[in-house]
């Protein structure tokens, strides 16, 4: 899945997560850049990163910048938001 524009999903409500999936500059080589800001960083920071990477990997996203503003979302919610944002960031998805 190729990321060609910014895609966003989620909210800043308690228990939700705001995700932005963005393209990276092409010269730097394919890479996933994760920017995670979470109210539960100390308790779940690693787990959140693991779930985001796993979800992107399942979607076949290998080159993207992913910005996460997490408000204590559970794993299933994080997965859903990342997936929705990634789809909105691909060419296949119609203009919103």
């Amino acid at each position, binding site marked *: 899945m190729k990321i060609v524009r*910014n895609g*966003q999903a989620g*909210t*800043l*409500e*308690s228990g939700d997560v*705001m995700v*932005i999936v*963005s393209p990276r500059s092409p010269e730097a080589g394919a890479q996933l850049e994760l*920017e995670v*800001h*979470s*109210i539960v960083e100390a308790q779940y920071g690693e787990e959140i990163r693991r779930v985001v990477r796993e979800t992107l990997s399942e979607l076949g996203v290998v080159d993207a*910048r992913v*910005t*996460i*503003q*997490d*408000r204590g979302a559970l794993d299933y919610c994080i997965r859903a938001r990342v997936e929705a944002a990634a789809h909105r960031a691909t060419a296949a998805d119609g203009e919103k």
Partner: protein
Amino acid sequence: MEGVTIRRASLAGPDGRRVEQFLHANGLRMERGLEYTLVAEAGARIVATGSIAGPVLKCFATDEDVRGQGVMATLTTLLLEEEYRRGNWHTFVYTRPHNLNTFLSLGFQEVARVDRSVVLLESGPESVRDFVATLAARRTMAGGAVAAVVVNCNPFTLGHQRLLETAAGASDWLHVFVVREDLSAFPYDVRRTLVRRGTAHIPNMTVHDGGQYVISQATFPSYFTRDPAEQVEDHAALDATIFGRYIVPALCITHRYVGHEPHCPVTSVYNAIIRRELPGYGVSVLEIPRLELNGEPISASRVREAVRLGDWAAAESMVPPTTYDYLRSAEAEPIIERIREGRSCQ
């Protein structure tokens, strides 16, 4: 959030007055240039509000009664969604320091803070770290006299040229930041090109994009409204803090040059704050007298006035040939047209 509804308020209508009163009651004033405002209401009573100006979320206020109910989270989400619709993915929050924790907990990152008056936060795919990394990659030297000048150049005049020649002449290297924000008569690309052309003879100089962090809507909105009634000091202090905290170390800057400003109150406040704040970051501030013509300092606004009046001789006497050639080119026609019609704010 129970019983609270959020909707868009049109500031031109009766809502404008209500929002203003609510902000007043919370010790804030309605800032200029708000493009989109939301109000949260419980019944007929406003309990929270927040607005957008460019990529900046600001004019936030919440009633004590609804704190901790997630009203701010919903309001901020809706404002961000509006920003994304407008294509602004790198967003800022400009607010009072007592709201810092609220926005940190919403996942924003602190950029800079002026004690007891204002804090700037950001979110999105880019951040001040990227800006600093871009600058640091263009660092030419660490050690020696490294000067910086911030210019808008609307358009580039002989006065600007003299300022940059003076600064470069006294330094090992000069970094020039051109204000990025497109709120001036001459668009950024043109202003930057004219700076380049007018300084081609200066060998030890780099021109940088001022980006979001040097006199932008986020750091210094009153620079563009030129309204002395706005919190110019807070804005200037925020801008100076960002310069000192991020830009100075990225480029190892030792000196900052500013042009003396006898007339514009906003710029003279800015210069005073720069002089007050930057020494704390190890930077000496030097104020250079303006180049004068007929006993009056040359300024971009005088050039624009000459252009407006069609007095090309006067314009030519105040700008370098590189700027004059541009002003008379076909490319400049739409801009000249706008200045003549007075449709440009400055």
